């Protein structure tokens, strides 16, 4: 299956190292989320992948080959700052972009109309782009990236500015394309969204990759924590062997067992002492992990 591989990518602007030795892969068939704060280097990395900027070091590979212009032409790309001709009609504009990608005018038109239908924009086809709302302009932009049935998708903040139902239809669309086996990389600063949608994450901070992996893998990076809620005071937990206590607050304790047997011993001890209201694995939210890795 096709995949995009980024190896040691580096790019400076004057003194600033915007992207510093960045390596990760975007496997085919799944959605890869690209996360990082403002100025972390997401947009620069995506531009480097698309060949809009020349790398000062490192390379981008397409499967086993170096990335070429021919391959890039088959990648659906959506830049962060939305680019469309404001005064041109929606249909004309999209057909033009399709033709530049190598489609015939007829194929491009058919594909555009199909996508406009899907987003409920069919009747706006002959309107100028500047007449559309920002959300609808964004939909048009996405169509520009998807209409060619691309071999990969690189989308910079595709969800920003969309209402919840548009986010859902956009997410469905991205999954649909990923299920064709193509690599899909999209950046976002909406962590809840990324957590819900992504199969894989690449976290960037200050131009460097600070974490990669599935959401589960990232969560697994932290300590395995359990929350124990009792009928009475939980202070005694501090004295149990093999248990590292992170926090005790009245009847609730946040603990990190050394191993499985220590965990089971803790639960048995609690049951012997009285009422156990709750005992559960404490899964950190992605935002917690994000704060931790980018700190």
């Amino acid at each position, binding site marked *: 299956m096709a995949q995009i591989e980024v190896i040691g990518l580096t790019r400076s602007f004057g003194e600033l190292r915007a992207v510093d030795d960045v390596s990760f892969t975007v496997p085919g068939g799944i959605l890869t989320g690209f996360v990082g704060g403002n100025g972390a280097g997401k947009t620069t990395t995506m531009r480097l992948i698309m060949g*809009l*900027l*020349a790398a000062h070091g490192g390379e981008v590979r397409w499967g086993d080959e170096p990335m070429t212009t021919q391959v890039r*032409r088959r990648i659906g790309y959506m*830049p962060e700052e939305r*680019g*469309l*001709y404001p005064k041109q009609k929606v249909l004309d504009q999209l057909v033009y*972009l399709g033709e*530049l990608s190598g489609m015939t005018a007829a194929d491009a038109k058919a594909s555009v109309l199909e996508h406009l239908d899907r987003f409920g924009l069919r009747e706006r086809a002959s309107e100028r782009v500047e007449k559309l709302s920002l959300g609808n302009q964004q939909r048009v932009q996405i169509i520009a990236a998807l209409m060619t049935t691309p071999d990969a998708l690189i989308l910079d903040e595709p969800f920003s500015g969309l209402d919840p139902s548009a986010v859902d239809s956009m997410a469905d669309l991205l999954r649909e394309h990923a299920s064709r086996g193509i690599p899909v990389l999209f950046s976002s600063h909406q962590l809840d969204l990324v957590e819900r949608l992504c199969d894989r994450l690449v976290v960037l901070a200050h131009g460097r990759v600070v974490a990669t992996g599935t959401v589960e893998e990232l969560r697994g990076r932290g300590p395995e924590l359990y929350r124990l809620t009792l009928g009475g005071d939980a202070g005694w937990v501090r004295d149990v062997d093999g248990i590292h206590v992170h926090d005790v607050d009245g009847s609730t304790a946040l603990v990190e067992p050394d191993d499985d047997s220590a965990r089971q011993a803790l639960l048995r001890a609690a049951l012997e002492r009285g009422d156990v209201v709750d005992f559960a694995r404490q899964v950190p939210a992605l935002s917690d992990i994000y704060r931790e890795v980018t700190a």
Partner: protein
Amino acid sequence: MTAAPWTTVARREIVTKLTDRTFLLSTFGLVVIIAGVLGVQAWLGSRTTEYAVVTSSAAAHRMAEKVETVAEASGDNLQVTLQAAAGDGVAKAAIEDGTADVWLREDGDGWVLTGREDVAAELRSAATTAIRDATLDANAEAAGTTVDALTRGSEVRTSVLDGDADRAGVAKAVGFALAMLFYLASFTFGLALANSVVEEKASRIVEIITTKIAVRQLLAGKVAGNLVLAFAQMALFVAVGLVGLTFTDYDRFLPAISGAVGWFVVFFVVGFGLLACLWAVAGALATRTEDVQTTSTPLTMLTLGVFFAALLTTGTTKVVLSFVPPFSAILMPMRVLEGTASWWHALVALAILVGAAALVVRAAARLYQRSLLQTQGRLTVRQAWSTPE
């Protein structure tokens, strides 16, 4: 297999322009102006003015007939009708009530033309000529000789060593018109091109386009599209002008013009292409539409310079500049029109112009490529040249 990307870009440039109301209105407006100017010329030229000349004696009537002959031969579309009056009083009354324009009578040893308020200049000059010739003939005959014998050897003719006088005048007028057209086309289309480049830059659509096609293809398409449009617009103006000219008295110069117009066309294409690439660079150096005015100032100067060089230079300067791009784009076809440059001069100038255009295209492509994705403010040429891709 689909078309080469630059043809797609060029097609969009053309279609966008042809559906732009401002462009269509300004083109239409200029056509109306050209047609209007020539129409007025033609109307003035073809208008026949008629004067009624009244006389009250047989001698005056014979003289008036001579005036009629001279007036009609003058080519000024002058027509004279004759009225014979029974006496001076009747003739005077005819002038007063407007049934006649002029009363011609003999007075002592001369002639008098009497009008109500004035006597039209063209009629006066026709009358003067007719009366002088007639009187000279009569006087010569009385002296036993002829006018021809008297005036033999006094004729003054003019001649010009290079070509003829008429042609030089026409060359000047047509050259001015063509220089004006070149200036208009390269300025208006150049500015529009720079603006469309900065529009793509500002809206960032250029990021999408350049992931699909090479920057050179984009540049080539934009220049080609505008060249086709400029050329079509100019051809329209020239066609309207030439058709209009056939309705005026100047139509006799058409054959002399047409050959040089061919050279003008060739030089126009290459010269416009050279300047258009530079305009595209001016657009790429800017980030916002407001910047274009600054980044394009040197080009505005250059375009104006070419225009004024075409109008004002003479002698050696003109000959030298007619080989120097981009001045040669208009000066050489003008010299061919004047007949002061031969076909091989034109070929040499064209070769130099093509060579310069090729260099400019390469440099422009580099500048365009490197500044197109820089969106932090205005760039200088030096910055753009040394910016890594």
